[in-house]
């Protein structure tokens, strides 16, 4: 699975992009975020407050119960501030 991070999430995790092998027990966005928090202290810190994390799968916004698959591009980022 390809993971992308933007804005302060990128800065806190310490990389813009990483390729991960999804464990079989991870089926949805909530499970993915939970698993990611265990990857490193930096991930745990970046994903501490899920109220500030938006998730897009294959470039569409999704909620916590949305299923995840190995072939997905998953982007994690803070609420947007363009315009």
């Amino acid at each position, binding site marked *: 699975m390809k993971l*992308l991070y*933007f*804005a*302060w999430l990128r800065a806190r995790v310490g990389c813009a992009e990483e390729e991960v092998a999804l464990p079989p027990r991870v089926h949805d966005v909530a499970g993915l975020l939970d698993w990611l928090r265990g990857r490193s202290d930096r991930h745990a810190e970046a994903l501490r407050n899920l109220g500030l994390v938006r998730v*897009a799968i294959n*470039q*569409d*916004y*999704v909620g916590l119960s949305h299923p995840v698959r190995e072939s997905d591009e998953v*982007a994690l*980022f*803070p*609420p*947007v*501030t*363009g*315009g």
Partner: protein
Amino acid sequence: MIRVQREDFDVGAELERLTAGNPRIGAVASFIGLVRNMGGSDRVSALTLEHYPGMTERKLAEIEAEAHSRWPLDAALIIHRHGRLKPGDRIVLVATASPHREAALAACHFLIDWLKTEAPFWKSEETPAGERWVESRAEDDAARERWTPALKV
């Protein structure tokens, strides 16, 4: 039409192009967003806009299509810049054209309100206290809610 670019744009030329060859158009509305020199109580010397290439274009195209489905528009344009900008620089242009003003004005307002809460852009400000990410504003979410029913997400 959607454009995401580093370069500045010429507002006059863009508006000319929007209406060229279509004498049905009787109204053009536009919104231009600029970099402010203040963020809260801190002076801002520069702003860097980051975005999610691919999703940005996709979201802007969806928003534009939604505007076309809600109002009788002859043309719509969204140009959004990214990269490092200075106070006074243009960030975004939204323009809409229709036979009468009501549709053009409402659609233009809708487009900028939706863009601010949907399009994946993030601003980072350079201030005397250092560089910091701009936080999203509850007012922007409220502005977007004016235009519900929501786009499906």
